[in-house]
């Protein structure tokens, strides 16, 4: 096992497109690192460069102590799991698993032992004599995983391995992946566009956008203190609510004013976010996570109140997403534009224009609430978790990385 180190790695395609731009990443030995970002952000390219399937245009990649820039894929001692499984269709499951070992001239008995071990670990024993065409999607995915495991490589590289599975299977495979990593402890680099996968699987998550590294941190830290508007909007579902706001000083202390609402800003936030006090009287962007809302009757006593009119409610069983309009035009920033574009690409819808100069916010409330569309709701907001971003740069104000 070994760590993987990327130093100032560039990928420039013919025609000048820069897919990866000066990427620095230090993946520790045994770590589960997730590369996440919208499509076209360079995450797959970065992974393929580590694998040796793409040339490196600039910088160095090292696995363990070896710089691998000029090593062919087979000499890098890594195994990869592909999105489309990439099983050998003319071989049985057993032959698929054994192929890499055979090419490495391993003795037959050892191959047999490793294949059986991997098959047992992945529950594939009864399918060993079958061809991939006779397997379901989930089983094929497990074979692909097994092919990586038997090799006992320095690192696993996984390129959206779960995205071809249906939703339910994806959740259970996610859990097995977690278990597997726990058990084998092999350094893993995992590429996904799904932020839930990123949050649940990663020891650390690396958010990329247009080939540029945005932020690397543990999932919780990414969620709690995103470095800029892009990361804030990308991580978390439903996405963070944004509004153009102004910081004002009143009688009872500081507060943030937006769309006719005024929320008090606790002193603690100013202590946590140095530099925020310089924004009094200046426009900035306010961010509130849907999960920092609740119905006033359930909310904590000292949370701030907002009364809104529910336009749409999404009942998810365990909670309700209340969607309401606030009287302020949607935040326009290059970061939020990139997010909207990405969402449009995946779901094939662009935001409906019915909002006009209002913006849509989402609040997540307890399922015991009986909010119906059209109802007026009194919401409580946890003001300790307000996020503030610079209007020009989109950077989080007072974030350690931006100081």
């Amino acid at each position, binding site marked *: 096992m070994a760590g993987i180190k990327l130093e100032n790695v560039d990928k420039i395609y013919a025609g000048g497109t820069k897919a990866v731009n000066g990427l620095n990443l230090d993946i520790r030995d045994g770590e589960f690192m997730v590369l996440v970002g919208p499509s076209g952000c360079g995450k797959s390219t970065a992974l393929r460069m580590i694998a040796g399937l793409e040339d490196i245009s600039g910088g160095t990649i090292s696995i363990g102590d070896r710089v691998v820039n000029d090593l062919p*894929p*087979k000499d890098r001692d*890594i195994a990869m799991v592909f999105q489309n499984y990439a099983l050998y269709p*003319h071989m049985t499951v057993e032959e698929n698993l054994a*192929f890499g070992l055979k*090419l490495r001239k391993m003795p037959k008995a050892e191959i047999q032992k490793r294949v059986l071990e991997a098959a047992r670990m992945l529950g594939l024993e009864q399918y060993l004599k079958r061809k991939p065409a006779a397997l379901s999607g989930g089983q094929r995915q497990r074979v692909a995983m097994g092919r990586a495991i038997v090799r006992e490589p320095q690192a696993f590289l996984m390129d959206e391995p779960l995205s071809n599975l249906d939703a339910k299977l994806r959740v259970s495979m996610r859990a097995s992946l977690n278990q597997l990593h726990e058990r084998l402890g092999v350094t893993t680099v995992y590429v996904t566009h799904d932020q839930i996968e990123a949050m649940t699987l990663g020891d650390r998550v690396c958010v990329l956008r247009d080939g540029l590294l945005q932020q690397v941190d543990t999932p919780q830290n990414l969620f709690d203190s995103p470095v800029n508007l892009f990361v804030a909007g990308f991580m978390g579902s439903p996405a963070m609510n944004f509004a153009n706001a102004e910081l004002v000083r009143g009688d009872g202390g500081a507060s943030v004013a937006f769309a006719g609402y005024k929320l008090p800003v606790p002193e603690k936030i100013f202590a946590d976010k140095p530099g925020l006090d310089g924004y009094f009287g200046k426009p900035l962007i306010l961010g509130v996570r849907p999960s920092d809302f609740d119905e006033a009757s359930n909310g904590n006593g000292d949370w701030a109140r907002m009364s809104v009119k529910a336009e749409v409610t999404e009942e998810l069983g365990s909670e309700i997403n209340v969607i309401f309009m606030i009287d302020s035009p949607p935040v326009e920033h290059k970061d939020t534009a990139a997010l909207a574009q990405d969402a449009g690409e995946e779901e094939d819808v662009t935001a409906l224009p019915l909002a006009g100069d209002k913006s849509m916010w989402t609040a997540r409330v307890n399922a015991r609430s009986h909010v119906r569309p059209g109802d007026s709701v009194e919401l409580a907001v946890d003001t300790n978790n307000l996020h503030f971003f610079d209007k020009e740069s989109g950077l989080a104000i007072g974030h350690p990385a931006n100081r």
Partner: protein
Amino acid sequence: MRQGKYPFIVGFLAVPVILYAVFVIGPYAQAFYIAMTNWRGITANPQFIGFENFTRLFEDEVFWQAVRHHGLLLLALPILVIAIALFFSFMLNVAGGSKGGTMTGVKGSAFYKVVFFFPQLLAVALVAVLFQSIYRPDQNGVLNGFLALVGIEPVGWLTNPNLALWSIIGVMVWQAVGFYVVLFSAGMSSIPRDVYEAAALDGAGRFRLFFSITLPLLWDTLQVAWVYLGIAAFDAFAIVQVLSVDRGGPDGSTTVLPLEIWRNAFTYSKFGYASAMGVALFFLTLTFAVLTLRVTRRERIEF
């Protein structure tokens, strides 16, 4: 839909079936009948002579010579063409490795593709005339000219009975390879790139890649190629007719069945005997097709 189903199907089927019956099955049936007569193309009521034509055929040394030549063609043509075409298409499509998201061939592969396909565009008669000057037995021939440069006596490419058939096979291979390069290229491009990449990560070099991945996944295409080439091996009429010395010579050393049928029918006016030969050729081709499909049948590969 139920109501109009049969008229609909019959409407589509009628035209091809009628055409096939009139122009293929009809003549075949006639040939079977003519094969049992001593018709010479003139009398309105040919005399029925039973299997006499066939007994004479089986004692005819020229017939057996032609059959032996087909046997050789059947072995040499597919093996040579498929081997060469596979090598070329692998070099053109896969051997360059994975670049920018697709498998690529060696440098200049687009140019080579055109070069390889070019002979396919030439008419057989043209090819034959072209090779007549290449194979000329004196020093003015292209090949013998080269040999003369290194001091080797001129070779009778088409006049030496032991060499003539191989010279003709060489031309057939030269002309056929281009088409099969294109056919195999199409087959190779349908193999997912992921599979090659997975094999590369598993430690396969070019050689292993070809024998463990490309070849097995191309099996269906190979089978098609084998059948096509086998059928071509039972034909070879035009090239032998134009290129060989004395039409199938020297001394019948390059003759093939279609040529003998043509000679018997239109030179000697022995239509009955020629038809008997045609019937024999029909059964040879049929046997080959059935055997090939039997032997090579395997479960289909799904990606």
